[in-house]
């Protein structure tokens, strides 16, 4: 099986402490992988490196075997931030996506938007932060492509909406596609992961198969997550 994402000895020093160090990982086709870790551990930096929004200081990033900026048409990316201008309406945003992405389906995006009860014609600045995130999700999941990268898709959203978001992700996720989803809300999302990468202080500290953990440790991923980070803390102190 080919790896749709490959990182080879990738490091990026951000100046402040938010860099990443010596990342070596491959993400396979058809898998939903979780990227977990406390805030500031480097999840977003890793994702930006994959998308070509950051250049590695050392090492190589490969997206579908090529440099990231040559494979952008294969990825549907949801950043943590709002990346649409605040005067835009979702109708206009759909037009932009239709223009640039052949794999974008307006009907599907429109359907997702209506599930979130968001109006197509109001400008983004009139929406709450949570609504803006859901609106962007409709764009990203409206595309049918080999790789989805979602950076904290449930970040600023109320607990009720998180379920809806998860359902929309699963419903519109193209089968056979790979997905990389970063989050710090482990318990609500762990059921969709097949594999999970744990990050801390810029490194990948564990790479596990989810059902294996449940089988062998009799723990939820959420509990396992706490266990790992507690150990780290104790090691620091002790």
């Amino acid at each position: 099986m080919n790896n749709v994402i490959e990182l080879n000895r990738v490091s990026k020093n951000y100046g402040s402490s938010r860099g990443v160090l010596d990342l070596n990982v491959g993400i396979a086709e058809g898998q939903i992988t979780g990227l977990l870790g406390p805030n500031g551990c480097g999840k977003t930096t890793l994702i930006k490196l994959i998308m070509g929004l950051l250049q590695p200081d050392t090492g190589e990033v490969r997206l579908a075997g090529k440099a990231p900026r040559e494979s952008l048409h294969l990825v549907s990316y949801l950043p943590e931030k709002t990346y649409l201008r605040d005067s835009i309406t979702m109708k206009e945003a759909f037009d932009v996506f239709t223009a640039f992405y052949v794999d974008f389906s307006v009907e599907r995006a429109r359907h997702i938007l209506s599930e979130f009860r968001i109006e197509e014609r109001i400008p983004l600045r009139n929406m709450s932060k949570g609504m803006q995130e859901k609106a962007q999700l409709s764009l990203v999941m409206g595309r049918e492509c080999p790789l989805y990268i979602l950076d904290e898709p449930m970040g600023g959203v109320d607990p009720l909406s998180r379920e809806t978001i998860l359902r929309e992700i699963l419903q519109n996720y193209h089968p056979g596609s790979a997905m990389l989803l970063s989050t710090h809300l482990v318990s609500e999302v762990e059921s969709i992961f097949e594999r999970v990468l744990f990050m801390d202080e810029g490194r990948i500290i564990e790479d596990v198969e989810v059902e294996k953990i449940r089988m062998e440790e009799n723990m939820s991923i959420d509990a396992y997550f706490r266990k790992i980070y507690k150990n780290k803390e104790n090691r620091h102190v002790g």
Partner: protein
Amino acid sequence: MSYPFNNEQPIYLQLIDIYKQKFVRGELMDGDQLPSVREVAMIYGVNPNTVQKAFSELDRDGFTKSERTAGRFVTLTQEQRKVLQEEMARQYLGDFLDKMRALGIDRQDIHRMIGEERE
């Protein structure tokens, strides 16, 4: 649908259990079609590959059969259903007895408690 799984145990095993219960209860009978992997994943909010794994095992154990384009169908005769019912009942009973033993409750108390328990 509220999330019926316990995250501390492999989800695919729990899924297999849920479907076996459906078979025993008669909710899904011989010849009925199972929903697609995708649909099940969406209904329960789980990874489609996990559903695939569960369904593959049901296929392997002979409870279901996957026809290439037509879908997945239940293949369970009345006999097999009875056997499955017995098997699952014994398994649940075993689990129950283990739990009771862990609490230090003996057979007599179990019988008494069952008697007291309302229908």
